């Protein structure tokens, strides 16, 4: 028996998985080959070592973290926008502008579905209690006993007090992996008034029902998970938030790219904005650079005098907002707000 052949049989010999003829040949080889014999001894020792490898303890908070995600999964209701909700009439009007928007919307809805659903392949489960996780509005979270492992929450987050409106918006980017973007929007009143609100998918069909609505009270907010599954870089998913504060109605848009790019600030791209109005332009910038943009809900429909833009996100955003008499503000990594 050759050494190589003997080594191939180490495991079989160890596990007594050989017929007697083979075993004799093997033992004969070991008797004649000190190198293989020594090697086999160390092989045996290695296997014993592996067998003795202790278990590691499960982190104390692991169980609660799993159950919290399970609770999320149970309470989220998937809502799909179906093709029969689309207003086909409007889709094919002659107006160039409407067609541009509608065509984009159609692509989004037919080829992909925008599903508001919590359980996803969300690897960045930022549900470690007490670790600066902002997704726990109104949920009872117990602090885990014992020392905490060094777990880093991997989410990009920004808070924004929408000007003069009594509403605070938080955007958390839960996951940037895979094809889509997973976002958590949180609405909280920043005063003591209660606020009636509704959130729509603006890029859905006009007149569709809200994906979330209700009343916010002091210390009681709303959490709206939004997942963008359509991997397009030309359109952003736009959520529209409407609310009433002290008798006045407010609206705001949140442009959510399907592929969020935390390092967007460093990228130089070209974006075509010919013939776009402010709403479309912001959507394109959001989608192209992978940045989240919060804006007022009344952007007007004036066509901007910008054509093709190239450069970094902030530069292009500056040009677009200047054109419209507005300015931008950075809220967090790749999360911006535009204001008058």
């Amino acid at each position, binding site marked *: 028996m050759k050494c190589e052949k003997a*080594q*191939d049989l*180490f*495991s*079989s010999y*160890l*596990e*007594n998985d050989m017929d007697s003829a083979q075993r004799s040949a093997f033992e004969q080889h070991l008797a004649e080959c000190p190198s293989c014999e020594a*090697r086999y001894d*160390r*092989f*045996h*020792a*290695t*296997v*014993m*070592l*592996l*067998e*003795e*490898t*202790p*278990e*590691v*303890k*499960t*982190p104390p908070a*692991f*169980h609660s*973290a*799993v*159950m919290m*995600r*399970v*609770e999320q*999964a*149970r309470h989220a209701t998937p809502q799909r926008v179906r093709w029969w909700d689309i207003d086909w009439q409007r889709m094919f009007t002659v107006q160039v502008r409407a067609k541009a928007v509608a065509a984009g919307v159609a692509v989004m809805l037919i080829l992909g579905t925008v599903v508001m659903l919590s*359980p996803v*392949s*969300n*690897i*960045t*489960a930022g549900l470690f209690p007490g670790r600066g996780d902002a997704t726990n509005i109104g949920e009872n979270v117990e602090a885990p006993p014992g*020392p905490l*492992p*060094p*777990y*880093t929450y991997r989410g990009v987050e920004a808070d924004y007090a929408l000007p003069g409106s009594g509403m605070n918006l938080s955007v958390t980017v839960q996951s940037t*992996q*895979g094809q889509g973007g997973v976002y958590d929007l949180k609405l909280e009143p920043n005063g003591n008034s209660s606020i009636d609100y509704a959130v729509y998918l603006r890029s859905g069909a006009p007149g569709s029902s809200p994906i979330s609505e209700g009343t916010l009270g002091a210390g009681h907010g709303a959490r709206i998970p939004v997942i963008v599954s359509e991997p397009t870089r030309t359109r952003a998913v736009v959520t529209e938030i409407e609310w009433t504060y002290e008798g006045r109605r407010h609206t705001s848009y949140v442009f959510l790219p399907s592929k969020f790019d935390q390092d967007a600030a460093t990228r130089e791209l070209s974006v075509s904005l010919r013939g776009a109005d402010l709403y479309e332009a912001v959507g394109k910038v959001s989608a192209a650079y992978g940045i989240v943009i919060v804006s007022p809900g009344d952007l007007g429909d004036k066509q901007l005098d910008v054509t093709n833009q190239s450069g970094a996100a902030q530069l292009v955003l500056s040009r677009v907002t200047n054109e419209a008499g507005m300015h931008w503000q950075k809220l967090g990594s790749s999360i911006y707000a535009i204001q008058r």
Partner: protein
Amino acid sequence: MFSKTPKTKSSEKREAERADERALIQRCKDGDVGAFDELVSRYEKRVFNYAYRVTGNYHDAWDVAQEAFLRVFNSIHTFRGDAVFTTWIFRIITNVYLDERKKSKSHRQTSLDDYIELEENSVSRQIEDDGPTPDRIVEDRERDRIVQNAIDSLPEYQRMIVTLYHMQHKSYEEIAEILQLPIGTVKSRLNRARQALQEKLESEPELFG
């Protein structure tokens, strides 16, 4: 001669346990979250340990294990009562791990600073009955880290096979089922993995002292 000793239980006891687990799984399928909570309790150590050994670090293990349980929750309605549950759950963890590997190429190393706590009833304790001394604890952790580093150096499938065989005590048949590989392949890869580990660990004399 190394032989795998199955857990010494009477066959009645095993049958009773199996029936108990089937009932629990059925309750999970019926949407009983309390039952799922119980299932998590029963499996979290195995799931986390497998995830830890194949990912090589605590953080990824957390992510993989958590995602695995979530997938179990979302797809338990597809589990056929007559199939073997542990095989099914290990298939899921394996798929989560492979999916995660595809997405991120980062390979984080465990350092001694990572808060890894080993179970105190580990075999390496040997003769001291009063519990491990602090020195012994550090020794154990150090040894574990060396072994884990060696395991990290293996290719994916060998890593999974070693872990399933030696740490999860799965049989060749079960491993073949979990990884969807022919049994012969599992056996030869395990042999190769053991020898690769042997070579890696040979430079650490204190391990074999």
